[in-house]
């Protein structure tokens, strides 16, 4: 049994975690919970890309010894994309959290229903 | 398998046993402080035995030195983290459950005044 017995399990997990993250963004009224859901959604997207790079019998794309023609290496390209995407994701999450802090200071709450109440009365 | 590999396998199995003990203890203990006690078994004995087994398998390579450094860091920070959680719980007002409060296995943790 090798890693390939997992078959398509990675893709099903990716779909499920994506849907969980989107559910948090759409249904929950609390803004911080929505930011957490957005981060979970991003994590699922990372999982899809890194799933694509695995080769059976290969190692990581680092040449510890000079490469022979028969060696198999994992695909380095999705790793490059996700490496930058992780840091950009945290920067965007931090911006979202800063806006949430300002909303709390102005409205006194971070629940969407209560914010609508305050806006309706204003 | 040579003798070294048998000894390493013994260390790994014992380490796994202690991790399992820690996990079962976390579920079965009645109170936050006793659960922290169970968790600290995992991070000391479990870490020590598993890392020793891995170092024996790796032999005299650079990987052994790195594993030893990881072991030192884990032994250093793990108990500090347990202390931090237990101390914060005490300051937050969660009182340890004493024998005269009666049996109360599991259940959610409520801070009592």
């Amino acid at each position: 049994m090798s890693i390939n017995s997992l078959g398509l399990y990675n893709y099903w997990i990716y779909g499920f975690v994506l849907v969980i993250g989107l559910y948090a963004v759409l249904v929950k009224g609390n803004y911080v919970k929505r930011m957490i859901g957005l981060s979970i959604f991003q994590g699922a997207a990372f999982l899809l890309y890194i799933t694509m790079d695995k080769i059976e019998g290969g190692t990581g794309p680092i040449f510890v010894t000079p490469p022979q023609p028969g060696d198999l290496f994992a695909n380095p390209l999705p790793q490059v994309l996700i490496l930058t995407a992780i840091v950009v994701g945290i920067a965007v999450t931090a911006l979202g959290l800063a806006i949430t802090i300002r909303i709390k200071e102005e409205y006194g709450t971070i629940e969407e229903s209560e914010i609508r109440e305050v806006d309706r009365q204003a | 398998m040579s003798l070294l590999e048998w000894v390493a396998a013994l260390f790994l199995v014992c380490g796994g046993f202690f991790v399992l003990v820690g996990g079962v203890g976390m579920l079965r203990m009645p109170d936050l402080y006793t659960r922290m006690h169970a968790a600290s078994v995992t991070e000391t004995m479990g870490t020590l035995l598993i890392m020793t087994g891995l170092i024996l398998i790796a032999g005299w390579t650079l990987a052994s030195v790195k594993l030893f450094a990881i072991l030192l860091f884990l032994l250093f920070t793990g108990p500090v983290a347990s202390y931090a959680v237990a101390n914060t719980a005490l300051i937050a007002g969660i009182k340890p459950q004493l024998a005269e409060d009666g049996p109360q296995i599991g259940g959610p943790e409520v801070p009592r005044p």
Partner: protein
Amino acid sequence: MITVLGLFTLTFLVIAALATVQSRNLFVASMWFCIFSLMMAANFLILDAADVALTEAAVGAGVSTVLFMGALSLTAEHEHVRERSGWLPALVLGLLFAVLFAASFEQPRLGDPLAPVHQHVAPFYLSETPRLIDIPNVVTAILASFRGYDTLGEVLVVFTAGIGVLSVLSFSPKKNQQLSGEGVAERVRGVQHHAILRVAGKLIIPLLMLFALVVQFHGEYSPGGGFSAGALFAAAVMLYGILEGADRSAKAMPQDWMLRLAALGAMLYIGVGIVCMMLGGNFLDYSVLSSKPVAGQQLGILLVEFGVGLTVSTVLIMIFNAIANRSTY
């Protein structure tokens, strides 16, 4: 055996995601998110992506949790129970999951060497890196040299997010929400009553900074590079801020200097590109930086990765100081 490990981490990922969304207490939700990120990092390691696992562990399980908890200490602890009626989003999301599930059957199974993704560009990168750039870490070679434009864009996005946070949080809070007189006097700074935490933490901070520098400059030979190193260095400064109080960390790393260093990192990246143009090559074509093209590529990658690490670390430190020094409550 690795199948069992893969199964475990993937399934625990779903459990952690469900627990995160379900918890009412937001601190508990952010801790579950930390566990989710750690499981994601373990999963990346099983799938042979070492750089990405290092970055995800440093960023997701480290920096992200601290930022969430910092924001939560300023906003709210509990989530209110009232939600909108969730049947329409649940229906749409169920349809989405069904579509993704049906589409997954046309994907190549995990590890297939004949998958289309392995056929076109990847063999070119794997075969050309020893010839053109000659560094062992192919991921760093692609990040800094072959796909240098994309990385330049990412660095600028990180810098923009830092500016955004500074501009949003530059409005001071309303007068009636500031601390009262006796509250300021009694406020404990950092964790100064916990001697064990302070000693242990302060012993770890220099080692963490040293490790960040190793990851930064060793990124051509082992997993690492500018992004992970920046996150690790920011994590060291955040640890100092948590232990000694955020005002001390803001004094140690002043906001305006962090802004200047972040701009310097981005300008270093662009500057290397412009120097390449002035020396006769294209923008970000490092071969002209030295008499031998291979040495020029390596010099270019070193400088560019340093620029990336500088910008990422200073932006994350800036964001932490801005959030942690907010004086409401």
